[in-house]
């Protein structure tokens, strides 16, 4: 599913934000915190939305050790290599897509100003 892109689906259902670093990427990144799924990042090119879906399909799962790691990921402050070395986060599934999303969010992440979990409840 990653990078194949159905441009419309996510855009019509969820309030999205603009993430310039994700240009050209299409797919879904599930986020787990301490072993539990907490949401899904829907990426449709430069459009990105964080939705509370924990059951739908996903290309990649980012397994975060704690809330702070997830917040860093969303704000574009997470170095995926260091997170992996320190065992704070790891990717399962399409790791290429997951790495591109995490690195892409480092470029003007739309979640940068968020205090908590983005659009999650």
């Amino acid at each position, binding site marked *: 599913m990653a990078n194949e892109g159905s441009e419309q689906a996510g855009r019509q259902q969820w309030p999205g934000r603009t993430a310039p670093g994700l240009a050209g990427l299409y797919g879904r990144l599930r986020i787990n915190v301490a072993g539990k799924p907490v949401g899904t990042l829907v990426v449709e090119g430069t459009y990105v939305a964080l939705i509370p879906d924990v059951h739908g399909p996903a290309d990649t799962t980012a397994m975060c*050790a704690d809330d702070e790691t997830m917040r860093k990921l969303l704000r574009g402050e997470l170095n995926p290599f*260091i997170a992996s070395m320190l065992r704070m986060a790891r990717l399962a599934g399409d790791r290429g897509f997951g790495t591109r999303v995490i690195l892409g969010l480092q470029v003007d992440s739309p979640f940068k100003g968020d205090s908590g979990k983005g659009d999650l409840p």
Partner: protein
Amino acid sequence: MSLDIVSILEGSTFVVSDRRGDLDATPTENHGLFLEDTRFLSRWILTVGGIRPKTLSVDEQSYFKVQFFEAVTTGTVYVDSHLSVVRRRCVAGGFEETIEIENHAKEPVDLEVKLEAGSDFADLFEVKDKLAKVGELYNNVTDGTLTLGYRRGTFVRETIIKADKKGEIHGDGFVFKVKIPAQSSWSVSFEVVARGRRADIEDMEHPRRTGMLQEPETGRGLKQWIANAPRLIASWDPLNRIYHRSLVDLAALRFETGVAPGALPAAGLPWFMAVFGRDSLLTSFQSLAFAPELSAATLRALAVLQARTNDPFRDAEPGKILHEVRFGEMTAFEDRPQSPYYGAADATMLFLILLEEYDRWTGDHALARELEREARAAIAWIDDYGDRDKDGYVEYERRVAKTGLENQCWKDSWDSIAFADGTLAPTPRATCELQGYVYDAKHRMARVARDVWGDAALAEKLEREARELKERFNRDFWLPDRGFFALALDGQKRKVDSLTSNIGHLLWSGIADNDKADLCVKHLMSDELFSGWGIRTMASSEGSYNPIGYHVGTVWPHDSSFAAWGLRRYGYRAEAARICRAILEAADLFDGRLPEAFGGYPRSQTEYPVEYPTACSPQAWATGAPLLVLRTLLGLDSDGKHMIVDPAIPHPLGRIELLSVPGVWGRMDAFGRALSSTEE
């Protein structure tokens, strides 16, 4: 690297031992079990009855498994040994080892079999810079398992060792009291698993499993890898062996990053089983005619990891291709910047060069389309960031002096960029080959822009820029009084006037005007640069020359292979053939496996190339050198539709047949035989 070591590896896991199979790491012996740039086992010593068995032979069955045949000697040559030992080891994620002791005597024997185990959990940079560990080492024994551990805060690395036989387990190893009946044997198997975890949270992953003495998964097995490569039939027999060795070593160096499909070539053993942009790109280029899938994997992985942001600590700028990725402790704690580090001024251009070469060789335009965004970002990096002072040349200077690389070209040792009198050139440094790569990259990407992306405007812009760069370069870098191109422009825009092998890369790139190329060829083939075994990195006439200086006098086989390819490009067939022959004859004397570098002593002085003391072996682009040499000898190229064969083979090499060469044409055979015009 010492010749009395035995290395087996799989992916990023490898074991380096002595010829007994023992690991006994010291500051000068890089023995160990290595994974993720960490030494998980530094001591692994077998004694039988208090004696370290004597090696009879070593059977290196494959790059991932080995057998050691040994005897427990009696201390005198006049009495046969009645105890033999066979150690079988297979690496993958950790390793497995079976020790079998056979009693050939007619009486039973009582023995104490001891295996000492220990780990220093050294990080590459700690070994390199002789640094002490920050955290603490520990060990514990539970449920028949010995755990060797290292803890620094929540950062934990452990080596878990289990035996399949009951024995005493101590913090420093295993002891078995055994009775072996007459003409019988006893054996024990160990499983050694390396793992990383956090101390404060539940493990997010299972410890890695080992390979159960079966061929590990690397995308495809060694037999299949060899079968898929072109078949070589050479009348000069050593070439067949060199070719086979290169293919096997290249297979061993395949490294899966996980961020893109396929495996790319890692840089080398023992401390360089990691992704290096420059090394993977150049090795992929060398092996394109033999294993094009390496190029695709390299390009895809480096595209994923292309820099997005401006990060001085990592010398990163948007669009730049990485230099190095590491996973050890010092990288994890940001004592070092390799997460990833982008301090390579050439990798971005080499990425573009390989992308075009792959596209033209394979006809797989889908990859150039898939990576269009990354390629455009790389093109933009050249002028936006690579040319730091907007003087029309790419130059480099590290942004963090404590941790950045001083030299960010392939000759990355501290003393490599010096004037003819030996004075170091101040930074920023615009080395000449970087400008050649820019010229070549823009020239090549113009074709991709026009033919694949349908962007004629970009193609015209790149062609114009390449043309202007060539004109500018031939004016600004030329040393008319010495008749070659300056090694670099230094921080004060002075020409660094040393004669070096870098001019060979200018021929590869095509940036040299024909009349100037002719003079460069004369220098490349002179006694000062051509040692008889290859091109010296620095001419023997220069102030910094040292025949065993890493980048100031040694011969690097990959460097010579690109120079030879460049000579062919400019039509110097006999000169190219002479260098190719020299490299292959050196390879023959290194038992088929070229080291990273060897001494620059003249061939007239020694019948054997002199080893460089700390050279990596196998090392990726040294492994690739015979492959590019073969391509050069046969004059293999692609016009995007057909395979071009234009052989120029020196007489001693006779006839070369390369069968089933993959490319846009499917599979085709190439033949060549020596003609009098290519005699030396």
